[in-house]
């Protein structure tokens, strides 16, 4: 299954959830936000939202700023 994460192509063997994707990518769960095809997925839905073929995932992370 092919998806895009922040414009980078990624191939997955199984259908996985948002939370599993973040863990797979080694990204922190705290301080992160996720949008699938431009729709923000609330944190409470991360364990139940399955990623589908062709999905465009956007990952955001809190960083230092003024």
């Amino acid at each position, binding site marked *: 299954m092919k998806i895009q*994460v*922040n414009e*980078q192509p990624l191939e997955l063997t199984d259908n996985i959830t948002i939370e599993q994707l973040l863990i797979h*990518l*080694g*990204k*922190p769960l*705290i*301080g*992160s*936000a*996720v*949008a699938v095809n431009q729709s*923000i*997925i*609330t*944190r409470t839905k991360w364990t139940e939202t399955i990623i589908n073929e062709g999905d465009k995932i*956007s*990952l*955001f*992370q*809190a*960083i*230092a*700023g*003024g």
Partner: protein
Amino acid sequence: MLFKDMKTNDQLIVGDKSFSSRLFTGTGKFNDQQTMVAALKASQSELVTMALKRVDMQHRDDDILAPLIKNGMNLLPNTSGARNAKEAVFAAELAREALQTNWVKLEIHPDPKYLLPDPIETLKAAEMLANKGFIVLPYIHADPVLCKHLEAAGCAAVMPLGAPIGSNKGIKTADFLEIIIEQANIPVVVDAGLGSPSHATLAMEMGADAVLVNTAIAVSGNPVAMSEAFAKAVQAGRQAYLAGLGGQSTQAVASSPLTAFLEASL
């Protein structure tokens, strides 16, 4: 009123939170995370700004969040990078998910040279975000008319600039800040451009409810010591404001009695 009472009772209320410190701080531009945390602790700040960015898939970013949460700081995510109201609302909603707070420092500054805020898009975004239940603190030019519109839109505070972001030039907008402060029914937080503790003192003496400082602390020779200096400066300015400054005069007003006693003794 005794100063002790002033300190005890002088809480700043913004939205649904109460603050003992009137110094808000940013987390950007520090050389390293350890210095940032030490400086923020030294500042006694209870509200710190953060930004949000698209994750770089090739690199791992430092986790700066954990030490901030551990030290009990309230987080104020900004919408830096947004070029219009739509992008700012999207950024605020992402920040709410990332940081689990409905507080947002609304900033829309499309021009990278001066980073001056876009008043039209900021007002649009403020209305939308307030309607969605966000606690909105908009970064704006020192425009008294815009401030009243933002107040009517439901913003929790306004954050007019003293000078362009990161310029360290101090309060170049003093006359307009005075009007904003006089007219405001919500807290006024002077943000951007404060380059030295004396600038922060001046803002507080003018009656600002708080100041937000980032660059002046982060890029100083000793950020921890500079944080302490800003904390003292903000307290001094606030105390002076509460005490009530003496009036100004164009002529000299003698501080000693002019009794001409030397002449009388001859």
